[in-house]
């Protein structure tokens, strides 16, 4: 192969071919790896989920929980509403609820809604655990269809852990993989 010619102006087609092949191989390799892990579908689901339920994600929840934890909750009357899509879509903004309650009570009141991303009772139990003490009222949605949900489809305990799931609330905002309560399923 004439390398002198390759590095000169005549090498342009080879460079283009090399660039194309690099991208092709890269895309195929990444797609294969990602596809094996179900990433394209998960990403689509995530985007869809965020678009449909902008309030209903862990970033919002983490922010809500963090703001509750960091602020001086003794100065206000707090209501935290935990629920799934029904609960979240059933309410106007937290600000509207807060101002309505403040007006009716004539004292500062704060309403914070936190959604359980997997919309099941196990998830809500974890949120309650993460909330800790906020000196207020915790509202929980209750309805037959909620009792029909798979109780813990996202957080199944490993067989070697028996009915217990690893407990680690030291990390905050807590991660899916570690935030869990030691509890026994009924």
């Amino acid at each position: 192969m004439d390398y002198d010619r390759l590095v000169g102006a005549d090498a342009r087609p080879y460079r283009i071919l090399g660039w194309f092949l690099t991208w092709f191989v890269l895309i195929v390799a990444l797609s294969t790896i990602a596809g094996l892990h179900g990433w394209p579908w998960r990403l689509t689901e995530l985007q869809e989920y965020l678009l449909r339920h902008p309030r209903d994600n862990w970033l919002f929840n983490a922010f809500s929980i963090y703001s509750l934890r960091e602020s001086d909750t003794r100065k206000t009357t707090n209501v935290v509403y935990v629920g799934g899509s029904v609960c979240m879509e059933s309410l106007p903004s937290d600000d509207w609820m807060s101002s309505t309650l403040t007006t009716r009570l004539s004292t500062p009141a704060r309403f914070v809604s936190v959604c359980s991303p997997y919309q099941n009772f196990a998830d809500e139990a974890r949120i309650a655990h993460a909330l800790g003490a906020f000196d207020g009222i915790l509202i929980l949605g209750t309805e037959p269809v909620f009792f029909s949900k798979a109780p813990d489809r996202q957080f199944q305990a490993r067989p070697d852990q028996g009915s217990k799931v690893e407990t680690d609330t030291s990390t905050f905002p807590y991660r899916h993989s570690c935030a869990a309560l030691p509890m026994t399923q009924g």
Partner: protein
Amino acid sequence: MNVTVLSDVLQFWQVAPRALKQATARALREGPTSLHRHRIRKYRDLDYEDVADKFIKKYWTSADANEAFRRETIRTATTSGNRVALVEIPNDAALLGLFDPIRADCRQRVERIVNDYSVDYLQPQSRSTWTKIDFFDTHHLSPAGREKFASILADLLVPLMHRDLVAEKE
């Protein structure tokens, strides 16, 4: 991997979260419009009897575990010093009958929980007439139903919060 490819990949990772953020902000800005259009399309041709059947089948296998988790949530919250109130999510009155096989059992479970932990039970269902116009399906509220529910919930919450305030002063 050459430098050009690497820089393109890096740029993609910078742009992708921004695009997602912008899309989320757009959804937030548009508010319920896009969500409701989606819901209306999704539930327009739904066979509610079929849906109810599925819920009922799943209920009998999941209810015990769900009750245990619900109890755990209440224990956790009360141990932290918080008060708990359960709220019954309203349903389309015309479709309530579809859930009759499980409603009685569910009510018993909830009443047991309410009695065991002395928690409040808010029931907006009986505070208003809930019709098809208030829902997209059997239980997801439309904008009209949402306004009604929020107002009733605020009505129900005020006495509880007032009671707390009085107790604190005493």
